[in-house]
């Protein structure tokens, strides 16, 4: 009856047979792989890459609402840099975002390094401390922002009560109402929430440092402190780079924490206005006095954020990846 039909071939319909006779196994496999790639690529292209590129294109148009009406070349950028209506807001937002970033780099990431250095040795309760330090990172930024707004509220004064108790009542300030301290206070709130991220990254890096190296230094009489800075920290440089670039990208599109603690207008008096809140007001919600979104200027702000991110990330690739090609 059957000649040499293997069980697999018996079930093949003619179309499949023809397909198999034309295409060899390698080609067939590649066709399947293309099908595998398709959904991910399609959704990524349509909902991420294309809108991003089109938003860059829209920065060359003018229009109120969501319709681009006229091609204006670089006029939106010229307006952003020179028109008194936008210039102050834009450069203010750039400056505040840099300050926001600087506070995260110094406070959040230094604390993260300190906690990681403490958590790397084993002791009782280590896992609990680790879990507590990281916990706020799982919260919604909005909830954290609102919560601290209540705690810092002078009419309740949870923080002020504590300052009173420890005898520092003169330190109490209208934390979010004073233009000099609002942005630092909000930045510290955000650092409070996210300090677990650098902690865990530095910890993962420190665990990877070979113990023999540190041991050798100790035998040579190096103190714990020197061993850390002379041996462990240089080996940690790739992680320092990743932490810096992640902090940078996150901070340059931070929005929720300002929304929750200062509103989209970056109160008081725009002193906490960041690039993302400016982008939201101008390009999406509509800035006073017209109340309608200015799509062109909004897209120009998005383009500027994009360029700043590109410069920062390229700098990171250039400095850190070249230094340690085997890592990262």
């Amino acid at each position: 009856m059957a000649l040499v039909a293997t069980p697999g071939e018996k079930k093949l319909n003619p179309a499949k047979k023809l397909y198999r006779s034309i295409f060899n196994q390698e080609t067939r496999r590649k066709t399947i792989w293309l099908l595998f790639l398709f959904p991910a690529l399609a959704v990524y292209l349509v909902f991420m890459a294309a809108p991003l590129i089109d938003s860059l294109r829209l920065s060359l148009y003018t229009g109120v609402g969501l319709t681009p009406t006229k091609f204006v070349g670089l006029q939106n950028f010229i307006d952003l840099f020179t028109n008194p209506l936008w210039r102050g807001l834009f450069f203010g937002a750039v400056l505040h975002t840099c300050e926001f970033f600087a506070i995260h780099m110094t406070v959040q990431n230094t604390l993260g390094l300190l906690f990681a250095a403490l958590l790397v040795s084993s002791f009782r309760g280590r896992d609990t401390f680790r879990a507590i330090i990281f916990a706020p990172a799982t919260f919604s930024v909005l909830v954290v922002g609102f919560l601290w707004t209540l705690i810092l509220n002078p009419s309740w004064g949870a923080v002020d009560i504590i300052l009173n108790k420890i005898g520092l009542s003169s330190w109490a300030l209208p934390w979010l109402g004073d233009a000099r301290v609002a942005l630092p206070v909000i930045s510290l709130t955000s650092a409070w929430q996210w300090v677990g991220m650098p902690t865990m990254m530095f910890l993962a890096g420190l665990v990877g440092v070979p113990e023999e190296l540190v041991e050798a230094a100790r035998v040579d009489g190096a103190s714990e402190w020197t061993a850390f800075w002379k041996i462990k920290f240089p080996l940690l440089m790739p992680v320092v780079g990743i932490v810096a670039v992640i902090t940078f990208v996150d901070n340059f599109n931070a929005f929720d924490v300002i929304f929750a603690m200062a509103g989209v207008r970056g109160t008081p008096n725009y002193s906490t206005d960041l690039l993302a809140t400016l982008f939201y007001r101008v390009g999406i919600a509509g800035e006073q006095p017209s109340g309608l979104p200015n799509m062109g200027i909004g897209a120009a702000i998005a383009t500027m954020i994009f360029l700043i991110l590109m410069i920062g990330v390229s700098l990171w690739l250039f400095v850190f990846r070249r230094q340690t090609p085997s890592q990262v």
Partner: protein
Amino acid sequence: MRHFKFSKLLTYFILTVWSLIVLFPIWTLIINSFKVQKDIFANPFGLPTHFTLNGYITAWTQGRFDLYFYNTIYVTATSLLLILLFGSLAAYALAKWKSRVTKFLYIFFIAGMMIPIRLGTIDLVRMMKALNLLNTLWSLIPVYVAMGMPIATFVLTAFIEDIPNEMFDAARVDGASEWNIFVTIVIPLLRPALATVAIFNMIKIWNDFWFPLVFIRAQQSRTIALGVSLLFGQYQTDWNKALSVLSMAAVPMLVLYVMLSREFIKGLTAGAVKG
């Protein structure tokens, strides 16, 4: 020996102080959500003298938190399912198909980790309006799925590359198709990496506020984050309600975190430290 003890003491001291700084606001939030207004002001840090669930009940029924919860779960679950499916399929192809094209595609995908999708919002609003999806949950899902692709391909491709090739070859000799290999070999082995990707994206999507804020006004499509922002404004003078709303938004993730803290930490840091 004395020196050793001192450094241990210092470690405990620093970590305890920071733990208190972390736990104090969380304690203040949860404990005061069970107090009446007068009690909140008179006794902000102690246990409630008159225990009340009023804020929770009001937020749940009048504030429609029941609806916001359902919407958020629906959006998060659907997006996660699609991210894991699309991401693992693509990762398999990217890991096994070695060519210049796939190398480029891989870099193209992971470049998305450094470029926030927010910057394309103006165009996304136009797109959602044209597709008639504004004010629906389906305006959020495709964006979240796209947003999840970089981390999914990054973590999963690295993971599949570590699976020894012999396993695939053996299956192929037995006549298994690529799809069979994917379902019977890759997916089971991929489970820990899938968990990492799922947790990373779950936290991002569950907590996302930007896209609901931009895409959704209608009450029937609001998510928890959007609900919190609206109710917080509404209840700002009624602290019991405001704190109840915040607790309700924070507690589900907090409970999951307490149960799975190791996986959460691994998941959230996956972008930097390979899963």
